[in-house]
């Protein structure tokens, strides 16, 4: 299987998307190199420098336990990547399978897609909240819950595309050459879904960050000891008047990252879906 897709045309003439991609690269480097880049241990308490303002040696200041904010932010990048890729993986695999099977096997589809409809009737955050209250707070559970939430939208999209693809002549041609159901689904239909699913992945990656941050903020997401941008916001929110930088830095990081992911997602989609091409070029 080979999909003709190269990176260069995606970002050509799109300054903002390029900047976004660069920012995401920085986040990625921070996540990978956190132990080398972080100046302090993100979990180490230092009661003598509680709530110190940004400056040397604590560039982002310290929180109410005296932990170095910059180090926590750098380690938080790991959670961005982990939450993002984990929920994308679950959403694409679960949603993709449900969508494809539902479209291909009509009777099964009646059942599965109604379940998806019910889940989609809840706002994403509410659904995530309900599911999280049923589960223990942990990184894995957060990833699973966010994955499930976005599996529903993925299932819808894949369902629609598979319905169209399965009526295409090349599917008939494959059946004529003796291909079975599994072969038709995974060897002939699935490769045609790769590009749109890639675009979908970029948006899920972004929305997953917002969901995770919101869950963290509400105290239902990652365990409190895990350094994540959402947890930083959540724990320090009562110090907003005394030490506003404790909220400004992680808040800005979340906004910047989600915005970057959306810009990259837009650029990807415009590149893959010709209907959007040139309409909003330059964004």
């Amino acid at each position, binding site marked *: 299987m080979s999909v003709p897709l190269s990176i260069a045309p995606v970002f050509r003439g799109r300054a903002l998307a390029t900047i976004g991609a660069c920012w995401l690269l920085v986040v990625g480097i921070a996540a990978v190199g956190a132990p080398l880049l972080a100046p302090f241990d993100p979990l180490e308490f230092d009661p003598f420098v509680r709530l110190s303002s940004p400056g040397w040696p604590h560039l982002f200041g310290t929180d109410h336990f005296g932990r170095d904010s910059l180090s926590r932010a750098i380690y938080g990048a790991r959670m961005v990547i982990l939450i993002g890729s984990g929920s994308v993986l679950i959403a694409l695999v679960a949603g993709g399978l449900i969508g494809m099977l539902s479209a291909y096997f009509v009777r099964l589809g009646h059942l599965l897609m109604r379940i998806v409809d019910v889940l989609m009737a809840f706002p994403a955050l509410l659904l995530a909240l309900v599911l999280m209250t049923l589960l223990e707070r942990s990184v894995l559970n957060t990833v699973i819950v966010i994955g499930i939430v976005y599996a529903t939208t993925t299932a819808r999209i894949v369902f629609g595309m598979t319905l169209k693809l399965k009526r295409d002549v090349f599917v008939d041609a494959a*059946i004529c050459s003796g291909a079975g159901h599994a072969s038709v689904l995974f060897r002939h239909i699935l490769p045609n879904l790769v590009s749109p699913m890639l675009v979908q992945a970029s948006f899920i990656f972004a929305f997953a960050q917002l969901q995770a941050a919101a869950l963290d903020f509400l105290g239902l997401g990652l365990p409190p000891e895990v350094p994540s941008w959402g947890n930083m916001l959540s724990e320090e929110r009562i110090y907003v008047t005394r030490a506003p930088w404790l909220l400004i830095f992680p808040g800005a990081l979340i906004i910047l990252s989600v915005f970057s992911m959306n810009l990259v997602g837009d650029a990807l989609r415009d590149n893959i879906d010709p209907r959007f091409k040139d309409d909003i070029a330059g964004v």
Partner: protein
Amino acid sequence: MALLDIRKLDLSIARGGELLPVVQGVSLSVEENETLGIVGESGCGKSLTALAIMGLLEGTAVRIAGGSVHFQGWDLLALSPEERRRIMGRQMAMIFQEPMTSLNPVYRVGDQIREAILQHRSMSRRQAHERALDLLELVRIPDPARRIDSFPHQMSGGQRQRVMIAMALACDPRLLIADEPTTALDVTVQKDVLELIRGLQARTGMSVVLISHDLGVISETCDKVAVMYRGRIVEQASTSALFSNMSHPYTLGLLGSMPALDHDVEWLDAIPGRVPTLDETVLGCAFHPRCFAAKATCRTEDPGAAAVSPAHFVRCHFPQGSSS
């Protein structure tokens, strides 16, 4: 027994709780190394007949309401999906109307041909690659070693149809069903593709069912012809018998509506009117509202199939032509 033997095939389309017949009592047979042409307007049921043979009606609104389809002695309509899959591609193959969409856009053409080979043959990928190259050569794709790595969108319509033919021939099928293989192609490319099919047939001894709305294509390619109108065969004969003695007014109408190549004509004799829709019931002969020879009987009585000469059947009260 004939290679392909269709007896009294009835197809119906389910709509709003009732079954509307779309193909009625179609009987056809194809012998080894023979080419059968099925000709008729859009919506006359010729493609549906082909899809029914290939078992591609599953999941559509069309149901097989009666009749039988035997291929090499197998009852195709009674086969399990598993058994059917073993025949498809290996014993019988099909090429489609739209070469633009009948190849999977995300695979290189070589991969698609190889896939068709490996579906039925156990050979190494390397051997399959060699075979794919041979097949591309066989269908006369220039520079196959380079083209084998092309994506479908990098090829022209004619080339894609050649690739489709290569895929269909991957396992040397005994029967090839070609559903308007040249309709979407330029006239010059059309000729090449038809010649290719004919050449391959001579070489491999396979049988071909060629579906077309073009009598010219049929006359050049086929051994025998079935003319279909509104789900029924209205005239059936060997090509030479049919063209020397066209008996059904509809067949004559089809011939009259073809532009002649050797002289300019101001006006083409189109068949007046249109094919009645499925829910319109036409009493008597289904063709009578459009027929130049219709008489009172045609409006009330449905004509049965009558022999004009041995092996030349026509479904008309007043067959035209020399012997009537």
